[in-house]
């Protein structure tokens, strides 16, 4: 029980190393990766089972690592981390199923490393450890885009890495400064989150430090103005990576803000709040309009992703319980919905070899199941009632109205934003008459339906019985919100 989290964390890495050392065949590798991801899912479910709803940080494990500088291997989870952990554990097996036919081994190795990276980000309670995982998840993505991507893959891989590293460098500097300050004031080095929260800074320093963290997260999310890596990276990346980018990695930016930004910098974040809110609001409108004229399915849904992440970030910065619950809820449901839609774009791409919208159409008349699932996920992204997205958007909009009237009005445009492009996209993708590329479009196979059905069920359950998940988050969020509000005063 003590080492459950560590096992979740390092099992994929271990599998990757073992398989790599043994130089196994592609079949073995495929089975091993899928098996390991299932085991991880099992462990994650066990963790969720033993998780106490109102217990704060749990499954904490602490062992010294580089003790001279106070860097510890320190992990633990609270409700939100657990939520993300479950998402990761759920989505990874589906990705492995979706790339079952893949012959390039690099896919599997990189995805295994990626899984360790993203899981580590969610669990890390030590800032250096966090940074380590934060950067390590970038590397497989860089390799995957560069090696297996499409289009201008080298340029786009460079673009994503340069932009995100720009942010993480600033964060690293801030982390080191924090550790040093702990050394200077308390007398020994420490990078533990709980230690660093005790530190006090003068307002100017703390605003700079908070800004450094914010930059890293803003680029990862990405907020408006830091987003130009997003669409190229999405369009160049292989499907598996797009799913991870959209469903998991972007969410980790928000998670980082929540875990580190809001814990370490209650006051200075107040300084940034108006600007961040402005960026989020611009983002909601901007991304939606931007998506209209895109010609590539991946790019369209990349922008849709951006709009929703802006909405989630907005919810986070409203700092009231409605918006926080809504934000976290959207985090989960959008992860599921976007995983679904990008997996389907992958399936579509395998069938047509082309995801330019102009070359598609008429799928609904020859592949009704595909059309049903695709339309379902697209509608789930627009936040149709009955899917989880609606609940989340409703909560965020209410939270935004509580914050300020005009913020609420702009936040409510998210209801309009998604439909502007998604319905047109559906029209040109699914409906109408078939074209050259879609003439022999095969309907979904049993495996593919098996991949997508869990996602559909989750979306429906979260939409119809939202209190299940909301109650799960409520205690943790309320406690953190109280702590945050206390810190501000």
């Amino acid at each position, binding site marked *: 029980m003590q080492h459950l989290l560590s096992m979740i964390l390092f099992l994929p890495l271990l599998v990757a190393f073992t398989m790599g050392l043994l130089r196994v065949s592609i079949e073995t590798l495929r089975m091993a990766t899928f098996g390991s991801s299932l085991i991880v899912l099992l462990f994650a479910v066990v963790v969720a089972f033993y998780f106490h709803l109102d217990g704060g940080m749990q499954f904490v494990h602490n062992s010294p690592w580089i003790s001279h500088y106070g860097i510890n291997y320190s992990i633990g989870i609270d409700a939100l981390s657990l939520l993300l952990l479950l998402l990761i554990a759920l989505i990874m097996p589906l990705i492995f199923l979706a790339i079952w036919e893949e012959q390039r081994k690099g896919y599997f190795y990189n995805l295994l490393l990626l899984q360790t990276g993203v899981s580590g980000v969610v669990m890390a309670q030590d800032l250096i450890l966090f940074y380590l995982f934060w950067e390590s998840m970038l590397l497989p993505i860089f390799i995957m885009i560069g090696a297996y991507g499409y289009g201008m893959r080298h340029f786009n891989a460079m673009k994503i890495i*340069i932009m995100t590293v720009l942010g993480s460098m600033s964060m690293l500097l801030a982390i080191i400064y924090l550790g040093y300050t702990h050394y200077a004031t308390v007398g020994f080095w420490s990078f533990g989150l709980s230690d660093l929260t005790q530190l006090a800074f003068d307002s100017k320093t703390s605003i700079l430090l908070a800004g450094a963290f914010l930059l890293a997260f803003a680029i990862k999310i990405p907020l408006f103005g830091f987003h130009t890596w997003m669409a190229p990276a999405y369009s160049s990346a292989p499907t598996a990576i797009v799913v991870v980018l959209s469903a998991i990695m972007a969410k980790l930016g928000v998670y980082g803000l929540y875990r580190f930004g809001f814990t370490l910098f209650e006051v200075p974040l107040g300084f940034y709040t108006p600007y961040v809110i402005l960026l989020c609001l611009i983002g909601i409108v*901007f991304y939606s309009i*931007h998506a209209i004229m895109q010609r590539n399915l991946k790019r369209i849904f990349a922008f849709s992703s951006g709009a929703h992440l802006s909405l989630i970030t907005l919810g986070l910065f409203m700092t009231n319980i409605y918006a926080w619950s809504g934000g976290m809820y959207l985090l989960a449901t959008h992860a599921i919905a976007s995983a679904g839609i990008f997996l389907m774009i992958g399936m579509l791409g395998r069938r047509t070899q082309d995801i330019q919208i102009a070359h598609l159409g008429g799928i609904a008349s020859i592949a009704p199941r595909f059309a049903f699932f695709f339309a379902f996920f697209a509608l789930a992204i627009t936040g149709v009632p009955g899917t989880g997205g609606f609940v989340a958007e409703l909560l965020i909009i209410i939270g935004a*109205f509580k914050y300020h009237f005009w913020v609420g009005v702009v936040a*409510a445009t998210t209801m309009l934003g998604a439909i502007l492009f998604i*319905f047109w996209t559906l029209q040109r993708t699914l409906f109408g008459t078939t074209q050259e590329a879609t003439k022999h479009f095969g309907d979904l196979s049993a495996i593919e339906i098996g991949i997508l059905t869990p996602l559909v069920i989750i979306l429906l359950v979260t939409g119809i019985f939202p209190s299940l998940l*909301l109650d799960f988050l409520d205690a943790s969020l309320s406690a953190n919100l109280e702590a945050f509000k206390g810190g501000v005063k």
Partner: protein
Amino acid sequence: MEALLSLIVILPFLSATILGLSYLVDSKKNLSNTYYATIALTTPAIVTLLSFVLVFKMSTMPHDTPLYAHLFDWVKVGQLHIEMRFMLDRLSMIMIGFITFIGTLIHIYAVEYMQSDEGFGKFFAYFNFFLGSMLLLVVASNPIIMFIGWELVGLASYLLIGFYHKVSSNITAANKAFIVNRVGDFGFIVALGVLFIALEGQGFSFEAIEQGIGGLSHSTLSFVGALLFVGAMGKSAQIPLYVWLPDAMAGPTPVSALIHAATMVTAGVYMVARFGFLYNEIPHIGEFIAYIGAFSALIAALMASFERDIKKILAYSTMSQLGYMFIAVGLGAYGAGIFHLFTHAFFKALLFMGAGAVIIALHHEQDIFKMGNLRKVLPQTFIAMLIATLAITSIPPFAGFFSKEAIINHAFLSGHYTLWIIAMTTAFLTAYYMFRLIFVVFFAHSTKTYPHLIPLGKMIIYPLIVLAIGSATVGFLGIEHGFAHFVALPDRATPAPTHLLEYGLMGLNILVALGGIALAYRLFGTNPEPPKANIPIKALFIHKFYVDALYNRLFVDTLRSLSIFFDRVVDGAVIDGILGLLTGGYKDLGAKLASFQNGTVKTYATYVILSVSLMSLALIYLLEAQ
């Protein structure tokens, strides 16, 4: 009782799910249409029975004790406590009564109508889903759940309007319907957000809101009221959000019947009536609503007068009749408004189903000027259509007379003479364009024959007969304001009319209607001419005031060019430009430095010597300084 109420909502969704799953699983089309039709018809039939049981049980109870059915807590965050709880009061009772009844008739009709379509199962999945959504909307006990139903109705209409999805223009129509509806929903959700924050902590069910709004400022209430009405505009196709309605005719005819009679468009009126307590606090917003309604009624009537497509004529007539309802609810005559909604459901369903019968008999011909003399060929349809037309033109004793008269009289008695004049004009136009349709389709070209007519089945004819009887008789429910008293909505009082005035107004109404019929007969009785755009004002009417073109230019083109602008300029030039300056700076610097590395050993030697020389200078300086 609670269980029955829950079942009314749950059953249609359940059967929609079963139908949808069957359709998806059955990829080889093994399941027969009978299988789908059985499930699809059983559900609304059961639901209708249940709702009748409830209606009879409820009508004996006092009107202020609604029936509640609590299912589960939907959301509980902070002060936001939303229960999935259904409420059945007199208003929702009337609504579920006619929604389920007329909905069932349309289902029966649709089984025959859609018989040969390959998407038969899918169609009924959508149909049941539509019905369920509408019922959810109606019985919701708080605005949030109502909004869910509201949205789902929009989704269902999207799916059904775009049912023939191989033709791209149908999907465009469906998109238009959904997007315009969402614009309205945007108003709705903003209103709900403001209202919730204003009432935070007092609960958010309709009862709680009714108790809580006393403490709110007048401006807040006006704002909320106006924005809620924006939602109603979208759903009920009022100016300026009506553009989706005529295009929505792209769907199969039963869909049009369902949208226009029993579901969807009635939602806006219902919602305003549901929030009647709120609008009573802000009569000036109510007047605004009434004016919007009046102008919608007039404009729609004008457009209908120049339309050639039989379904679009009916669509505009719906918009026009909805305008009447909004006049009523805007002026506080909620009972009258709902009564017109009720009667309208009967005759509009009948009109659409009749039109559908004509269309299907003529191999999907929709242009009325290609029809004529159908009176002899389709006698049952003709009779049914005639009854419905008489009802909509408010000729006594047909249903529309009672309800429309109540509205027009209310406008007159409450002193809104402008509204009254507009309403009378519209009544005249209504009679004109409806009888234009009747004359052109059933009377004109009395020698025309139809060799390839498709015979109509029983399942098409019987619902027509039932509805014809309904259209002829349900109006009597409204005698002496019986209906309004029964619904027990918070109507605003008007001065009681003298008997002379009352009979005078009634006579005027009938006269105006007869005048319209006479004009229609004069122009179209024997030898009709299709409308020609020979004078500018006519062209304006025929082209629907160019509103579609205007909206396209104003919104669609703007958004598209904005999107391209964002892509090329904001992202491409500005943001990447700034980034490019950063990275490009390094690149240029690198290029400059690279030119120092010219490959010539001598130059390198020079660098070394130059460095040594500089160091020497520094040393000399330091030594001297000592």
